[in-house]
């Protein structure tokens, strides 16, 4: 079974800061990690390979230093890594990112399953996974909390809902996004770390991906970030004093004042 896991390198959340002038994340001096949800995707990919055989390729788009995230994935047990890195990809929103990743997946040839984390902890959109499936024209299940069965051409999985879960069957090739309930990601192994150090990471540019050049990077991104801000902390409420009758009267008065009634 050929599995492709898409990951994203994100800043460590504990240390996130926003540049107030540009409304973008301050990345300098902030440690970069694999998006935590993607570590569940990696673990699940490795587990499927251990059960069904085949190979796991990890794919990411980002600046050259995103290579480190791929090496970490290889240290966990992934077979190979592909980095999409090109100035032309800069400024990609979720649409352009989905497009680039889907183009790369097409280039990889036959695959059975694409696995993504449910969302990245920096943007929190949860759009790229489904976006890739749409562009590849394959079915997908988002928020998978358990794979009940997987074999050639078939998968049955539990999708986590706000109230319970659904069991969904789907043909392969297809895509799933996973939630943290699905597994406990393993730590790297020493053999994996040694391999990760030696492995050649393929770096693909926009030319390699082919397709419509206008759909990559900033040009292919209709999303415009107008402003990012931290919401004002909610001000403390007011507690009305006095006997119940007085409190009710005061409350009605207050509601009238604010034209809520």
């Amino acid at each position, binding site marked *: 079974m050929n599995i492709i896991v898409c990951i994203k390198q994100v800043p460590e959340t504990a240390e996130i800061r926003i540049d107030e002038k540009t409304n973008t994340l301050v990345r300098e001096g902030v440690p970069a990690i694999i998006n935590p949800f993607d570590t569940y995707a990696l673990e699940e990919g490795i587990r499927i390979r251990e059960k069904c055989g085949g190979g796991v390729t990890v794919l990411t788009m980002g600046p050259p230093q995103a290579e480190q995230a791929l090496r970490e994935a290889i240290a966990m047990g992934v077979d190979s890594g592909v980095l999409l890195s090109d100035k032309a990809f800069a400024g990609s929103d979720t649409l352009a990112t989905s497009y680039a990743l889907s183009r790369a997946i097409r280039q990889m040839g036959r695959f059975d399953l694409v696995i993504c984390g449910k969302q990245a902890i920096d943007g929190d959109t949860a759009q790229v996974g489904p976006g890739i499936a749409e562009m590849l024209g394959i079915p997908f299940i988002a928020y998978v909390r358990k794979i009940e069965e997987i074999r050639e051409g078939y998968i049955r999985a539990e999708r986590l809902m706000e109230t319970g879960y659904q069991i969904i069957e789907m043909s392969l090739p297809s895509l799933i996004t996973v939630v943290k309930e699905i597994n406990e990601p393993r*730590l790297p192994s020493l053999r994996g770390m040694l391999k990760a150090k030696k492995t050649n990471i393929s770096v693909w540019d926009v030319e390699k991906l082919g397709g419509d050049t206008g759909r990559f990077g900033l040009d292919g991104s209709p999303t415009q970030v107008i402003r990012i801000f931290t919401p004002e902390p909610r001000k403390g409420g007011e507690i009305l004093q006095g006997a119940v009758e007085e409190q009710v009267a005061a409350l009605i008065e207050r509601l009238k004042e604010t034209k809520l009634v």
Partner: protein
Amino acid sequence: MDYFLTEEQKMVRELARRIAEEKVAPVAAELDEKEEFPWEIMKELAQADLFAVFLPEEYGGLGGKTFELCLVTEELSRICSGVAVSYAASALGSFPILLFGNETQRKEFLPKIASGEKLAAFGLTEANAGSDAAGIETTAVRKGDKYVINGTKQWITNGGEAEIYTVIAMTDKKRGNRGASAIIVEKGTPGFDFGKKEKKMGIRASATRELVFQDCEVPAENLLGKEGMGFIIAMRTFDASRPGIGAQAVGIAQGALDAAVDYARERVQFGQKISSFQAIQHMLADMATHVEAARALVYATARMIDSGAKDAAKESAMSKLFASDMCMRVTVDAVQIFGGYGYMKDYPVEKMMRDAKITQIYEGTNQIQRNIIALHLIKEAASKK
């Protein structure tokens, strides 16, 4: 201090540290309290290939030696010494096979230890034979193509949990030390059973049990080396493993020092952080200096052994002696810096002080280490004349 580790050694240390901090730290106090053998963590260590670091590649290892064993043991000990000794005892159990086993024995047992599939243990101590190994009463009598073992080993680390045991037994009682032999015994062999799990002051996550042999028949090909070599095998094994105890002591002490520094920077008395008091500063400075000195000695000894030194008994004894005495002092001082809080189980230094004590006792008491060192000094001086 920069010890100029290789890239691979840095990886070993980083991985061991990650496992210690992410997997061991959250459960260390509970394992200690419940005296529970850390099987989950042993599996993590196996999966991370850390049981492979002290064995050669041809036997499923990663080609490292004593130094790598020390790095892992130190990092684990920084968080939980009970976990560390369970790991290191498997290395101890593998050394007699590595050093004295024939090719068949090595190929049979070492890959299983390197993969972490099986734990190993070493059985020497008995009720009446501790420091005086010549007092061993367990016997192994040759009967055709088998040895029949009878007797009881005491305080065996990983006892009951390990699958592969190297046991020292007398094949010829009349010859004293020279009548001892080393034999591999596998768990599950009829006549081989385990006594009660001991309740200990420290390293409580580790399992310490009796090995009980009653007409236990073992294939004669499980003999390591030749009959009569048991005592030599035990001594050479300890020469290779003692820096591991030194590393354990360094790790415990480093953990205690780190905790003490953090605490001193938080604790306020007389309107200021206690780290601003010179009394505390000097204690911390001494602790840090002693930890570093011990680490330097342990690392230098491990490197000496790994480079193939013919006789490292003296240095090996020094590294264990110095590091363990240092560890006891440093952990006592760490508790002192914590004051009343340090005496409570809510903080980790109380456990570290309990864990420290055994490092002065096992794998040869520190008195025996001094004997070894002195004996070598005298021998060396005599040989010069």
